[in-house]
């Protein structure tokens, strides 16, 4: 049988220990500069004792790489083109349906072009689930880690939280900067894609050359030179691949939309 009050005293001992630890932990950091990152990281780590809070916004914990907030669109640094082909998968997998995409149409043929004319994300609706980035087949939409998007409606545009294509588009380097571990994988995939496209282009060029040779054999007329074909081929082939992928995605989506 315990003495009455011993339970309370043990409890008070625990609070006292917590209280003393705050000072001990501070003493341990006496020699080091206050406010530098190690203290902040330590306070938030599984080894933390004593004070576990940090002084936001003076101190800001770095967010993990996987952290997700509002999506953004990735623009290729070299070609300065959007990775997005406006296939619409992100708009379809978006649970609260906060993505609006307008597809570009060729002004002459009225055929769809694999690039978005406009792209809206209503961040007031967005639930930060990350599906758009996860299911995008072109790695064109990624999740931003910037979580401070509040603003004063008195001084800024009232519709600031509705992001249009301009404000959504970011450079590839920005994306790699905040997601360092995906950079290598993406570059590798890109190189593989390019090699494939190149191989396809070469095959096409060979075929064209063979056709041309046949034509030469058939009619002894002057032949279209095959050099331009080879030089032009990579772009249509790459575009064609994108188009094919887009068409396949659209077909899948159509099948999904069909009841």
């Amino acid at each position: 049988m315990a003495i009455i009050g011993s339970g309370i005293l043990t409890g008070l001992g625990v609070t006292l220990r917590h209280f003393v630890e705050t000072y001990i932990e501070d003493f341990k950091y006496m020699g080091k500069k206050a406010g530098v990152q190690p203290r902040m990281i330590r306070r938030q780590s599984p080894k933390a004792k004593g004070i576990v809070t940090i002084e936001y916004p003076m101190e800001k914990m770095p967010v993990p790489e996987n952290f997700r907030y509002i999506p953004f669109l990735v623009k290729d640094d070299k070609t300065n083109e959007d990775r997005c082909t406006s296939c619409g998968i992100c708009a379809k997998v978006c649970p609260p349906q906060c993505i609006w995409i307008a597809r570009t149409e060729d002004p002459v043929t009225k055929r769809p072009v694999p690039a978005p004319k406009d792209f809206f994300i209503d961040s007031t609706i967005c639930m930060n689930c990350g599906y758009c980035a996860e299911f995008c087949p072109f790695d064109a939409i990624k999740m931003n880690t910037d979580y401070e998007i509040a603003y004063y409606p008195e001084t800024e545009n009232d519709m600031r939280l509705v992001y249009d294509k301009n404000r959504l588009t970011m450079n590839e380097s920005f994306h790699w900067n905040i997601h360092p571990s995906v950079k290598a994988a993406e570059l590798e995939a890109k190189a593989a894609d390019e090699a494939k496209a190149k191989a396809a282009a070469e095959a096409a060029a060979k075929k064209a050359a063979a056709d041309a040779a046949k034509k030469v054999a058939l009619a002894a007329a002057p032949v279209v030179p095959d050099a331009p074909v080879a030089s032009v081929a990579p772009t249509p082939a790459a575009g064609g691949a994108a188009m094919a992928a887009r068409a396949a995605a659209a077909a899948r989506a159509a099948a999904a939309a069909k009841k």
Partner: protein
Amino acid sequence: MSEVTATPAKPAAKPAAPAAHGAAKPVAAAKMTPEMSAIAAKFGGAVEAAQYEGLLVTDHSKFIEIATYVRDVLKYNQLTNNTATDYIKDGVIEVVNQFTRVPQGGAPLTLKLRVPRPSGHDKTQPVPSLCPLYPGAEFQERETYDMYGVVFEGNPDLRRILMWEGFNGWPLRKDWKEAYYEGDTKPFESRWPGGDHKLAEERVPWEDNVNYPPGFDPFAFKPHPDGDIYDSMLAPSDGTVSIDNGHGVAPTIVEGLNASEMAELKTDEIIVNMGPQHPSTHGVLRMVVKLDGEKVTDLKLALGYLHRNHEKIGERNTWLHNIPYTDRLDYITGIYNEWGYVLGVERMMGLKTTDRVEYLRVITGELTRLASHFWAIGFLLNDLGAFFTPALYFITERDLIIDLLEAVTGSRMMCNYMRFGGVSRDFTSAQWAMARELAFERLPRTIDELDHFLTENEILKARSIGTGYMSADRCIAHSLTGPCLRAAGIGYDVRRADPYGYYDRFDFDIPVLYNGDVYDRYLVRVQEMRESLKIIQQALNQAETQSKVGDIQGGKKAYNHRVPAGQCYARVETPKGELGYYLVSDGNQNPYKYHIRSCSYINLNSMKEMAVGQKVADSVVILGSLDIVLGEVDR
């Protein structure tokens, strides 16, 4: 007990009769279990095999008799789930009741009733209520009434529960359209390929979107939504409340007065409103208590302040869209909510997972259980008056857990981690190391400290021992699940009773205590945290040797799932109790019916019985011990 073992033998005697009934329905008729056959044999003409699953009671007058048989002979002593489905094409509303055996467990038994679908906003013709047999049916039937307009004859308090009293229509009926209605199912066509952003208010003007009851003038309307709740409590009680929770409701005795002098004293009963904006109600819950002195003589709950018609949204969504929405139910344990949902869909689709997936699910799921119990105990202590010192100590630990979840899943609470047949990401080696550090070093120490800090505390014991008692039988009858049920001496845990995941690979116990009061609920939670740690430690060790890193998706990853037509009731043991998902698919990419058996909501059903006869300050503690989350209560 002898009857329980005897029941399976019974149907074996008459196998022919149920087969004939099963054959009567052409497609997708339910498979007959021995229990269903037993019912069919006994009540031949009144039941038939229902669509997809369970028995359809065709003769409503026999329903109570059948339910009594189910409860007393077949020993399905708990009503797990009650809901309805609107089959608009067939012109019927189907009421679904699911019964389970506590603590034996096993697959639930389904009994269905069909009523013709009324036109417009009319209520249906009455169906018999299960309240006299299963008191736990009260809130669930009220919800079904609120959402579908199904009238349950015999429910003691059949009022709207989640919607407000003046609401027009029955929101989960298929022909009801919400404000800013855009389409029956997502994805909406306006988004692609010609997407042009419009605010919902611009797209659908508000004026076109409200429908009032006939003859209703919004400008002349004087809101008195609480009339019912107060009026029903104003009736003077005779001092005898027919609740047997061990506290008794003897009239107040002032010391030094004898009975006749007390009668002359004529104490008044007053009605006090607690909440919804009050920290002790754990969110936006409102309790209306009737007090005699400090003693609670009656208690009613007003719910629905956080109601967003989650289930209607769920029916608009595609199957995949629903995963992040489930995070928002019980937002303390998002991972576990997702697990229950993907479990149901995986069962319907027959998807396979990998070893890695199952281990990751167990690890993250049990981590959220720890986080939730830390939270629950911290805030229980807040309710007990230990203002925020224990709560903040435990929030520190919970913060470490959600830091880890944030690093792995990308979000602290709204994890969106589960996928059909998989999970979204694997742990990196640094995250794995952090999980090991938490599971093997930090958290065991903290739980010991918690125990040391609180368990023997005299004030805690004085306040909580004997408070909020509910006997085991009443707990089962009230459909109580989770730590509260286990604190009353019933070792019922879905992880053992209806196993899922890889829980059969771990060595752990289901803690059971016998006093059924607030203190035992606290102790059960502490013990469960230790057991969870054991599970996490084993899972971490086993996953290292028995699973392949990065193997996080069983089958093909897809975004447009088509679930075969059918129905499923999947349940998991969340930190709060049994979370069930009743899903019906018609073969399309959207759920036809998406119902959540919300443990917080159903546990609240027993709140009145626990609190009556106690001091008003204790009713706050009892609420804290039930550990509710309003996101899940109101949905």
